[in-house]
């Protein structure tokens, strides 16, 4: 049986992609390449358009990206739910892909001048230009099967979907917006946890967002928390687990501590399926698991049930 590679959840929070990929490929290969670099001469180089094909990380099934998009980024062979961003979720959920984004004007800044291997501001600038995203969460309002709802969705590409001041403030304003317009609130989580470059400020976002949920609760408005692959740390220790309904996509890794940290602590291998959505459902922390293809209808059904 193929041994599953354990993802280093925490590493996603560094904002560096390359090193992780490098590490993974090192683990995969049992032979070493003798000569480094590209040996094919430029004249013989074959051009393949970018992003035309997608390989399923779970079963290696290859499909065209366009086909995969039509399948809502769910592998037609093994039902693996590919990681997608806010743009894709908004398109999947909102009627005719029409919605209005809110609070886009709030962006991160390097208040602490935090420097690890790189300066935080430099990281922010680089990721912004590379991804066209302003931060790790976007908020939008629109209709789901004709029912109006506010949806906040994380982008894992942006420093591992990390929770910092901007996510906290957008979350807070989204709650105010819901209360003002009497709308249900849904948050789609996909994050490695708190953003270390914002230090204690990012920790305090756990309290900030929970306090706002308390106000939403007093206003008797429903809050649905959808957990997707992966959701860890500060998210699961705050609003991720505080939904009136906590639901998840199939096979998503969800937990407080990352698998590597746990393994290092207990010095034992982790059981199969540990921290997967099915595991959480079994232990009583989810209301149900929902396939991405059924998500839209389920959400509109729920809104009906809450409002009738």
């Amino acid at each position: 049986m193929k041994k599953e590679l354990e993802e280093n959840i925490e590493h996603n929070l560094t904002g560096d992609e390359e090193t992780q990929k490098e590490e993974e490929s090192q683990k995969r290969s049992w032979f070493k390449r003798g000569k480094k670099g590209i040996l094919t001469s430029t004249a013989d180089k074959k051009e393949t358009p970018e992003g035309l094909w997608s390989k399923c990380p779970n079963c290696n099934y290859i499909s065209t990206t366009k086909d995969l998009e039509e399948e809502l980024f769910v592998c037609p062979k093994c039902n693996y739910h590919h990681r997608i961003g806010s743009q894709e979720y908004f398109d999947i959920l909102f009627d005719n892909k029409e919605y209005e984004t809110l609070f886009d004007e709030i962006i991160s800044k390097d208040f602490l001048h935090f420097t690890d291997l790189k300066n935080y501001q430099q990281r922010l600038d680089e990721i912004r230009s590379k991804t066209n995203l302003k931060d790790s969460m976007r908020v939008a309002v629109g209709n789901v099967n004709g029912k109006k709802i506010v949806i906040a969705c994380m982008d894992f590409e942006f420093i591992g979907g990390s929770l910092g001041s901007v996510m906290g403030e957008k979350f807070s304003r989204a709650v105010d917006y819901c209360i003002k317009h009497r709308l249900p609130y849904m948050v789609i989580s996909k994050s490695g946890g708190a953003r270390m470059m914002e230090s204690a400020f990012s920790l305090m976002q756990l309290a900030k967002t929970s306090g706002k949920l308390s106000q939403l609760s007093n206003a008797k408005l429903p809050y649905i928390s959808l957990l997707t692959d992966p959701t860890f740390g500060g998210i699961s220790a705050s609003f991720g687990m505080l939904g009136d309904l906590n639901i998840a996509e199939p096979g998503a890794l969800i937990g407080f501590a990352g698998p590597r940290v746990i393994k290092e602590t207990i010095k034992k291998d982790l059981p199969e399926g540990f921290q997967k959505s099915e595991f959480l459902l079994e232990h009583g922390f989810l209301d149900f698991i929902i396939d991405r293809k059924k998500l839209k209808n389920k959400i509109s059904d729920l809104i009906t049930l809450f409002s009738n």
Partner: protein
Amino acid sequence: MPQYPNRQFLDFEQPIKTLYEEIEKLKQTAEKSKIDMSDSIQKLENAIIEKRREITASLTPWQRVQLSRHPDRPYTNKYIEKMLTNYVELHGDRNFRDDKAMVGGFAQLNGETVMVIGHQKGINTKMRQERNFGMANPEGYRKALRLMKLAEKFNKPIITFIDTPGAYPGLEAEERGQGEAIARNIYEMTRLQVPVICVIIGEGASGGALGIGVGDRILMMENTWYTVISPESCSSILWRSWDKKEVAAEQLRLTATDMKGFGLVDEIVPEPIGGAHWDYNEAAALLKTSISNALEQIKNMDPEVRVQQRIEKFNKMGFWDELPVESTQVQ
């Protein structure tokens, strides 16, 4: 508290140890030769206090972290013993088991009933294991919440003592919902109808700390730290090495002075010269004064206003830029 020669010394406290050793030698000489050396001994004892002052005057952030973990540092139970009367410890989360890394119960502060809750570390090797090094499991957080709801029911103020290297990252902790337990506590603490005062008395690591750390007033003792991750873990993730903990401690801005400066805590509680481990009585007396004052400020407020202000206090935390809103609004 332990007295010399049972005291333990951190590397930067070694000059103090040397002074103690000199006193010891003088005492022995005095005994042998029957010469009165009390003057010299007194001088050395003064020198010890001066040295304690000198050392704490110029601590690096990493040294503060070390002080917060000093093996002789007082823990929650010590402060309860020294500050409060009539303490009745209450056990269990009524669900799974009694977590010994989290303690709590009713007690009296200046003759008034309060609920006191805190992380507890062990004072020797065996106890440290029993207390799981102050790392609570979900049942610890659920026990804390049960006690907080009990306090709310009987309208008693809540005092929490934070001292944890983090919530326990174990397999069973995950099975029982470590994330959910902490999330629930944070949420419920934002809406408790009674006054809540939280004090960082040692280590304040991440969600494990905040799980009993949401209140109307947040106090931080002088030689403690409070931030999103321990400097060691931060070093291993961001610097990809365990050797950058000193740099990580600096970058994280985790000291009481930093946190007060950011407005993330309300007050710094002074400690005895050199740190709380030098004098438990004095440390407890200083802490008692700060807590009593803080409680005085909030206890007579209307509960609804107090809750509203608590939520607002945390809602203000964070930093960001706001771009000018484009004039062409999307439909």
